[in-house]
């Protein structure tokens, strides 16, 4: 078994914010009744966090869980553990109607860092990214120019942007262009 590689093997760009491909991340799609005790317990056990409320996400060290839709969560674990976690979840949810899928390799993750992180994202997403509209602890599923994506703030100056693996180069290009020195909007 050879080591897995991420879509852009750690591409990096420095403009008035920095953009870095964050490398491999274990990601698991979990669909089911988010209110069910069994599911809540399983998530708690795996991630060490409760099932988040609508559009919330919890990052807990190298683990996390994000609300994706009324019947879907995205669980984040170390990449190497993804398969075993899928098995564990499947076991824990036996007898309930659910779907668990390892989507770790279907995604690319970028870290965007800098004071102007909101501004850079606002160039490619129509979502309201003002502090009033979007804060750490929330997940935003939206459009990144011409593709679907999601992001959240780990702190006020750092965002993690997730997109499909096949368009990683495109999304990296968008972020690089938007954060190029000279493109500052200085919009507060």
């Amino acid at each position, binding site marked *: 078994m050879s080591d897995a590689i991420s879509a852009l093997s750690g591409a990096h760009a420095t403009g008035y914010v920095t953009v870095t491909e964050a490398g491999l991340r274990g990601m698991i799609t979990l669909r089911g009744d988010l209110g069910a005790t069994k599911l809540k317990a399983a998530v708690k056990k795996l991630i060490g966090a409760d099932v988040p409320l609508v559009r919330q996400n919890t990052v807990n060290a190298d683990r996390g869980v994000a609300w994706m839709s009324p019947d879907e969560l995205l669980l984040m674990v170390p990449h190497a553990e993804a398969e075993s976690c899928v098995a564990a979840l499947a076991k824990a949810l036996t007898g309930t109607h659910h779907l668990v899928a390892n989507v770790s390799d279907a995604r690319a993750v970028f870290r965007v860092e800098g004071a102007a992180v909101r501004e850079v994202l606002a160039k490619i997403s*129509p979502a309201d990214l003002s502090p009033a509209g979007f804060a750490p602890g929330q997940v935003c599923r939206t459009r990144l120019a011409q593709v*679907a994506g999601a992001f959240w703030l780990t702190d006020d100056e750092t965002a993690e942007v997730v997109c499909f693996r096949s368009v990683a180069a495109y999304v990296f290009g968008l972020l690089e262009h938007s954060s190029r020195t000279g493109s500052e909007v200085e919009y507060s």
Partner: protein
Amino acid sequence: MLLLNCPCCGVDADETELAAGGEAHLKRETVGAEDEAFEAYLFMRDNPRGVHFERWRHAYGCGKWFLAARDTVTLEVFGTYPAQTKKPPKAIENALKKKRPDWKGWA
């Protein structure tokens, strides 16, 4: 550029994050249906100048389908609601009767 509130995730979604799905509350006709009823199911569409019930998918967001009551002339939105219903909720009907007294009503 429409702005519709997705009842499934609460987001005020930009039109560019949505996919339109045509008339809502169509009753599926299938094997056994008369030609006329089947034709109506596939092709005959409400196309009013005024209140229209329609399907939308929050395609770039939570991915869920939802329904909306919208005026096709003023583009006023009277409300959005989950897709799992065969008819508009009472609340929407009441809102409509208030705002559009001349509205013929649902059916």
